[in-house]
């Protein structure tokens, strides 16, 4: 062990500027996360596929087969328009799930008793960039999830049921990354704000309501029919759900169905990105620096 340490290497000679060191450290953190993803690729794909597969299977195959009405009107016409609604919803939901699972769940381990995130926090870059790196890695997983889910969601259905998709490419190609960043930032907020031991509770109280009230199974515009007096209360309430902007966005990108105005979708998604990133970075700093 003659030269484990090299006393002659002194910082005055070997030190790099903060910017250069941060840049290379940031890429290396991403590389580390992607390596972990590659090692767990099987599980990643399985967990990406299970939920959309079940949703599409039940709503677009089982329901039509057993004659259970969906889509508001009888016959394959209603089912086909429902299929289009659902495909958009399922892609949005998958990105949301990926964002939460890819960022919040690993953080619960990494912040736990052993603080294994510490070695990455000690990498030579500002700590908030470690948090941003988590978001970028989560967003990449969201993109992959969207790419896997979209073809499946658009082909699995009972005979006669057709998802009539009409793709608006500019909207689709801007919306996928925007949604992926928003949802993985949301995952960062959850992962840093929820105590690691309570992470299971998160699914019951946060993820499930978001899923069911996030416009996966129905377009937001149709919620206007649910009123108390003249107030469409549910339509207003679900505006607090970040997922609704994702699913409505995909509805705009993939179908000709009515949807929330695009300027609202883009404005809110961008604002949520900023808000969640800011909250998440603050939460991250609070966790690792005292």
């Amino acid at each position: 062990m003659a030269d484990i340490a090299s006393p002659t290497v002194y910082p005055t000679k070997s030190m790099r500027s903060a910017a250069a060191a941060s840049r290379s450290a940031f890429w290396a953190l991403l590389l580390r996360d992607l390596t972990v993803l590659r090692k767990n690729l099987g599980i990643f794909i399985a967990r990406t596929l299970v939920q959309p597969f079940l949703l599409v299977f039940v709503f677009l195959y089982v329901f039509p087969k057993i004659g259970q009405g969906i889509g508001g009107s009888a016959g394959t016409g209603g089912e086909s328009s429902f299929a289009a609604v659902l495909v958009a919803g399922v892609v949005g939901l998958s990105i949301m799930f990926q964002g939460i699972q890819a960022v919040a769940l690993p953080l619960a381990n990494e912040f736990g008793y052993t603080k294994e995130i510490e070695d990455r926090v000690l990498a030579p870059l500002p700590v908030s960039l470690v948090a941003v790196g988590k978001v970028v890695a989560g967003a990449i997983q969201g993109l992959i999830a969207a790419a896997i889910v979209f073809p499946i969601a658009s082909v699995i259905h009972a005979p006669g049921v057709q998802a009539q998709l009409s793709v608006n490419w500019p909207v689709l190609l801007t919306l996928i990354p925007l949604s992926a960043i928003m949802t993985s930032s949301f995952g960062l907020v959850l992962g840093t704000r929820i105590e690691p031991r309570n992470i299971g509770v998160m699914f019951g109280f946060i993820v499930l309501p978001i899923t069911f009230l996030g416009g996966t199974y129905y377009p937001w515009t149709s919620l206007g029919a649910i009123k108390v007096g003249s107030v469409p209360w549910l339509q207003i309430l679900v505006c607090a759900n970040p997922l609704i902007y994702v699913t409505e966005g995909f509805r705009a990108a993939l179908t000709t169905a009515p949807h929330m105005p695009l300027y609202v979708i883009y404005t809110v998604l961008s604002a949520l990105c900023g808000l969640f990133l800011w909250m998440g970075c603050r939460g991250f700093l609070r966790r690792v620096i005292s």
Partner: protein
Amino acid sequence: MRTDSTDTVNHHATAEEVIRCEQLTKRYPGNILAVDRLDLSVHHGEIFGLLGPNGAGKTTTVGMLTTLVIPTGGKAFVAGINVVANPALVKQVVGVVAQTNNLDRALTVWENLYYHGRFFGMSAKESRDAADESLAKFRLTERAKAEVMTISGGMAKRLMVARALLHRPPVLFLDEPTAGLDPQSRIALWEILDKLHADGQTILLTTHYMEEADSLCDRLAIMDHGRILAIDTPNGLKETVGTDSIVTVTATGDLGALARFLQERVEGVTKSQIVGGVVQLHVKGTRGVLPKVVAAAEQGGFNITDLSVAEPSLETVFINLTGKELRD
């Protein structure tokens, strides 16, 4: 090093000085004073120890010097870089071995080293070579592909030391490096630290083990309640006790009376005190002291059950400074 900001670099630091703290203070929310106006200077190439009981502020001090804890007062410089003003730069010059096993459990043994190298700007090839070399040096090559959860505690600690040194930092920090290790692994780690020391690596470690501090460290700071009580070489500290030997008397009955009695009756006893249920006598001149103690105790009608004599240890120093034992 960039010197664009006067706050970045401590121009007063001597070339020899690798760590410098001036009145460094950490007050946690709730008015908990963990570190209280700490002044410290660690020189190039020395193993410096922070010795003290749990809660003395050792880990907080290391935390501040490694950017994980933000000081609430004072200044600290590592390799001349201001820790508070330039945390991202400081991280380039420190290697940190935490108390708990914080290896990346999603990665293998080899990958833990490889990605650490990449974090610090090594190219893929540089980092691969450094990881291979480091595994060989720390005798971990056989477990290169193992998941880190499956290796023993001793190996995990070695891997953590290897990882902390991979980017060749001027200063290595070790927080309670041998806590929780079996005796064999502890000795193995001491050997590694000795070799690093011989190679000129500057090391700051915290410990609450006397023998570790005594045998490893060039200089020590004894800490309690967030303050440094004394800084010196282990021998220098022991000399401050001002006595040749410590006689420990275990007895039944009134220990206070026994202590007073022995101090009066036995020649050369400069001080007596009760520590942890036994009487300790500080004695000048050790010749024939044990028979004298036995005779005196018998005379006084005390019942001695055990008796031993030892040179002053760091334990004695700690008791002298704080009036209490430093328990393992």
